């Protein structure tokens, strides 16, 4: 999957610099892509839930009741039923968007900042700086991503901070590789050569000539990681390594409801459906973004 994505990112580099009205073209192509627009709409709803959840929920998501445990979907007053402690599922799913999105998106943002910086430095500098950075990245690449995330957060112990830290470390290597690959392509091009010949220092070349050409492809690649990150982040909570109870987070809710699969199976499956919808939307949004930014299609 990764070599494939690097190849696409490289194609984007060439595309970015060719057309003068590039961004208006991207916007036009994106607005014609109905699947991507729909996915964007779903993401927007989730973001609204995450930001304004506390004011939108119909009931108190922390209010438990021993009498009203595990009510089925469609119960009066509890449209999506109740969980194993009698808390309103609809409210918990709505407010769960907050922590789940936060845990899924933040690591990719951090990894984008760190990975892009390291990759651009490595790609632009070349030589021994490149070797040191990229060989270190290679070591982390030698771990399957799920294993690395679980190993790190398993060793560090449960908690939001540790989960974010381990997920960030998981996503730095792939982003760094893409950044290095597109930057070293740009580095060899005539306009960078010309800037160097006219006496611009490395910092100015990166700021003026490199960043504008590489950030787009790196960004698009990073957005494709959000879906993976959502699944992994909720997976950590599902294992008991991320968010701690009683906070509503979809992965953790799925974990605590696992015991209810014989009594109230469809209620128990709901938090996972939310993770699925979210990661699917991010995937389709990222696919749309990629084809909108690729002039060749």
């Amino acid at each position: 999957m990764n070599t494939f994505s690097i190849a696409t990112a490289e194609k984007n580099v060439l595309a970015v610099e060719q057309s003068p009205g590039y961004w208006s073209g991207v916007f036009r192509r994106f607005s014609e892509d109905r699947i991507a627009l729909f996915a964007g709409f779903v993401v927007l709803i989730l973001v609204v839930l995450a930001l304004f959840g506390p004011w939108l929920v119909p009931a108190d998501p922390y209010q438990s009741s021993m009498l009203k445990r595990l009510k089925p979907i469609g119960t009066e007053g509890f449209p999506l039923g109740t969980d194993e402690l009698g808390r309103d599922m609809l409210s918990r799913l709505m407010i769960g968007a907050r922590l789940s999105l936060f845990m899924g998106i933040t690591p990719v943002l951090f990894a984008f900042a760190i990975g892009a910086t390291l990759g651009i430095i490595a790609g632009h500098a070349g030589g021994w700086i490149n070797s040191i950075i990229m060989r270190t990245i290679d070591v982390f690449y030698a771990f399957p991503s799920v294993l690395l995330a679980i190993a790190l957060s398993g060793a560090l112990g449960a908690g939001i901070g540790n989960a974010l830290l381990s997920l960030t470390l998981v996503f730095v290597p792939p982003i760094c590789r893409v950044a290095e690959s597109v930057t070293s392509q740009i580095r060899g091009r005539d306009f960078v050569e010309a800037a160097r010949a006219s006496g611009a220092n490395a910092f100015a070349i990166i700021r003026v000539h490199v960043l504008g050409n590489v950030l787009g492809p790196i960004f698009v690649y990073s957005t494709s990681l959000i879906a993976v990150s959502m699944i992994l982040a909720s997976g950590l909570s599902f294992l008991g390594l991320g968010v701690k109870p009683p906070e509503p987070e979809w992965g953790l809710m799925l974990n605590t409801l696992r015991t209810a699969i014989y009594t109230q199976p469809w209620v128990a499956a709901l938090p996972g459906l939310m993770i699925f919808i979210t990661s699917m939307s991010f995937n389709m949004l990222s696919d749309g973004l990629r084809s909108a930014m690729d002039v060749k299609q």
Partner: protein
Amino acid sequence: MILFILRRLLLAIPIMIGVALVCFSLVHLAPGDPLVSVLPPDASADLQKQLRTLYGFDRSLPEQFVGWISRAVTGDLGTSIASSRPVTAEVMKAVKNTLILAAFATMIGFFFGSLFGFVAGYFRDTFVDKAASFLSVMGVSVPHYWLGMVLVIVFSAQLGWLPATGMGSGGSANWAWDWEHMQHLILPAITMSVIPMGIIARTVRALVADILSQEFVVGLRAKGLTDVDVFRHVVKNVAPTALAVMGLQLGYLLGGSILIETVFAWPGTGFLLNSAIFQRDLPLLQGTILVLAIFFVLLNVLVDILQTTLDPRITRG
């Protein structure tokens, strides 16, 4: 060719040393005393010191690393703190179980992934393509631990057709390739196969579409070859990359089986890792991760070598 293989193996050695260093650091990243899980709360200072020496925690970090890695090379990964059994034996038993699951899942994923990929690539931009592509996006987007739960709900809890957990009577020791045991494999393997399925379908679709638009295909058609013959050429061109992706996916599944094994109580490496984490059994944690990562590195090398052999266009160097 032999030179190429040797070179490729030599290149993997620094990576493996790096991997070992990361695994080793994991234990020392961990907050708190690694012995805390075995020590009784009222342990005397003497007993504490004795245990510390026994597990080697009293020496300096570089000393511990060199000792650990030189023993690891000979196959000794230390002793599990929780069970007092050798880590290597525990891990190898679990690796076998995970390998059964991952290999089965990869085969299912490869079969359906190639099928969807070929269909989508051949009928590009038609409804069939859109449907197949949608399925493959679903494959990479679905949280597989949830899919596992849903399958258990439908096929075990509701219909009662298949067992929900475990490896069958007698556990992994009595494993046999008969229906009684195989039925335990079905749900976890299907759950696990959706990820490679999605990724292989995407890869194959892109490859097929690319190959069909190349001039040599037009040439073959012009020469009067039937569709079946053209198809054979396409398969030949897709195979090396598709197989390489499949090999890498097997590696990802081996390392990433923890969530699925937890859902299905499958006694593999993921299950072992899970108990190592929650019992804070650091030698076991360290050993399991090391074995899985080394497996992954070697698998990468193997895939590289096979791909070079299968695809004459890739130069050896």
